[in-house]
């Protein structure tokens, strides 16, 4: 019995299973790194603001608990009203995309799945495109309406996918993927049609948005999005043990006590809503949802209890850094952040494919 206890202790230390200590060390480390990345990226933009100025500007915010814009210089206003909300939005978008990627890869048992695979994103994009085509772009109750159109579009396409893929109350994975691919193709054709009939300068704006762009949202809009993103990721975090078991295959998962049909519907619905919310604020930012889960899985292993929160934090950091590059590299011109993530993520993915083939999945 003593030897068995010794073996168990050794087991915990060998990295064969996830321990609370390892979880806390990795997640704690990543959380600190995320905070540092967000603060450091505040300096960069069309004009560079030194860290000292940032500290000065942040101090009254921390001590008085209230931000007095009038008493501060232009740089503080840029920082608090433009850069900070954009960085926060970027972090939330990146974190949501990576979390959704992790969940869908496990659910579809396919390491190539990403948040856009089910076609919900195209629905959201079509909603926004339609709104832009008809020139609806004002605000409603303090909130910009474009994300609302995106969200409704995503929701409608989710319902459509359910209808297409469902047979006799079940949701077969193959049908789900097929329905997603087909719906993606059809909806993308509609979006292309819209861009082709728009005036050229407006369609250029739409194209840039479709490639994925972050803007500085107002704090009210940011708060609404944050509720969706944080809430959605928090619910996904409750499903991590289920995700682990789902990777064993649907039948095995059911033989281990999971009601797979119910869980699949929950996960598809949840990830679709989260994707719809993300696309509606930032367009289609590619590669974050596919590459980040891959890279993190290679570093921390497959246990979703660690993989999901770690991917969320790394995804957030990745997008904040990418967006910083997107708005500084050709300053004062900005390039869509989707181009940066694709140019950074694509080659990284190729590297994984070519040099680490055996460790890739």
């Amino acid at each position: 019995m003593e030897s068995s206890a010794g073996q168990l202790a050794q087991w915990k230390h060998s990295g064969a299973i996830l321990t609370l200590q390892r979880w806390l060390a990795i997640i704690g480390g990543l959380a600190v790194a995320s905070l540092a990345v967000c603060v450091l990226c505040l300096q960069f933009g069309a004009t560079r603001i030194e860290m000292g100025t940032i500290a000065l500007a942040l101090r009254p915010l921390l001590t008085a608990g209230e931000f007095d814009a009038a008493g501060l210089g232009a740089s503080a206003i840029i920082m608090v009203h433009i850069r900070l909300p954009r960085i926060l939005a970027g972090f939330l978008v990146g974190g949501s995309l990576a979390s959704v990627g992790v969940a869908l890869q496990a659910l579809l048992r396919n390491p190539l799945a990403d948040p856009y695979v089910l076609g919900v994103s195209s629905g959201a994009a079509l909603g926004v495109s339609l709104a832009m085509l008809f020139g609806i772009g004002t605000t409603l109750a303090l909130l910009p309406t474009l994300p609302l159109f995106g969200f409704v579009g995503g929701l409608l396409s989710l319902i459509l996918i359910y209808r297409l893929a469902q047979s006799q109350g079940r949701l077969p994975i193959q049908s789900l993927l097929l329905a997603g691919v087909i719906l993606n193709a059809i909806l993308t054709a509609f979006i292309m049609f819209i861009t082709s009939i728009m005036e050229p300068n407006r369609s250029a704006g739409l194209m840039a948005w479709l490639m994925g762009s972050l803007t500085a949202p107002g704090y009210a809009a940011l708060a609404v999005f944050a509720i969706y993103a944080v809430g959605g990721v928090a619910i996904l975090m409750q499903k991590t043990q289920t995700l682990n078991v789902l990777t064993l295959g649907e039948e095995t998962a059911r033989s281990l006590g999971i009601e797979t049909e119910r869980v699949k519907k929950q996960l598809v619905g949840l990830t679709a809503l989260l994707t719809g919310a993300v696309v509606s604020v930032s367009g289609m930012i590619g590669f974050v949802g596919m590459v980040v889960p891959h890279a993190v899985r290679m570093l921390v292993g497959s246990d979703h209890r660690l993989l999901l929160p770690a991917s969320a934090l790394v995804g957030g950091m990745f997008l904040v850094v990418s967006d910083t590059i997107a708005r500084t590299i050709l300053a004062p011109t900005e390039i869509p952040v989707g181009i940066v993530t694709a140019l950074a993520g694509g080659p990284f993915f190729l590297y994984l494919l070519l040099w680490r083939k055996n460790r890739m999945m």
Partner: protein
Amino acid sequence: MTTPLPSTSVAPSGAGHRGIHVEGLSFRYDAAGHQARVWTLEGLSFHVEAGEILGIAGPNGSGKSSLLKLLAGLMPPSEGHIRLGGQPITQLSQLDIARVVALVPQDYVQVFPFTVAETVLMGRFPHRPSRLWSLGVGEETEKDLACAHQAMSDTDVWALADRLVSDLSGGERQRVVIARALAQESAILLLDEPTAFLDINHQIEICGLISRLRCERQLTVVLASHDLNVASQYCDRVLMLKEGRLSRIGSPDDTIRPDVLRMVYGCDVVVDAHPQTGRPRVTMPMGISRA
């Protein structure tokens, strides 16, 4: 194999929970808009005693895997009843079934880099308490770890604990899947073609393991196999399926017979006695003759 097993820690339920009773079981896959549906399984009635190894044999497409899936509660019967230890399977939740029945599927493909220890611990899923809010980290109890450890010792995969499942050979992977099923601590073990795709050495190893586990853990075992010799040498009784119907059930001496096999498989085979056990042994005849 390494440490003898205290039987108290592995018998979770009374003897009443360990038998299977099947009565008038019929099943067909639903195909929407398809009127002339054929029964995959039709009118099966049999029971499996607690602590028995029952082999299921029959030609391709005779319904062996479907029968196992029904016994594991993966699909509901179209007609008839299955009772697990007296309880009708339709009244049990998926989680309840998972605590009584463990399934070792025919093939297991893991696309993600999970370690052997992580995979075996997933067998403890049905025993995790469900909480409204939990990240699930560090929730493995001492019991979970001890069960997984015991299962890994029994199947001799303990030394592989921190290896990735995707790096293992077929025989090692099969033992890991069995370890995961054992960690489930259920009294009934269902195995679908446990020796398919394995070389002769691993076949002997897996079959020996199953007999040993039955003795050590008093498991009730149902295994589907194409290999009539596995059914003959390792099973207490054999159930012969033909086109979804029960064609014969009984001891290997009673079922692995030339006349029965001709009726079920439609071909002649040579059946003689195994030199060590005296049980029937099936070999292919010289030259192919079909009756």
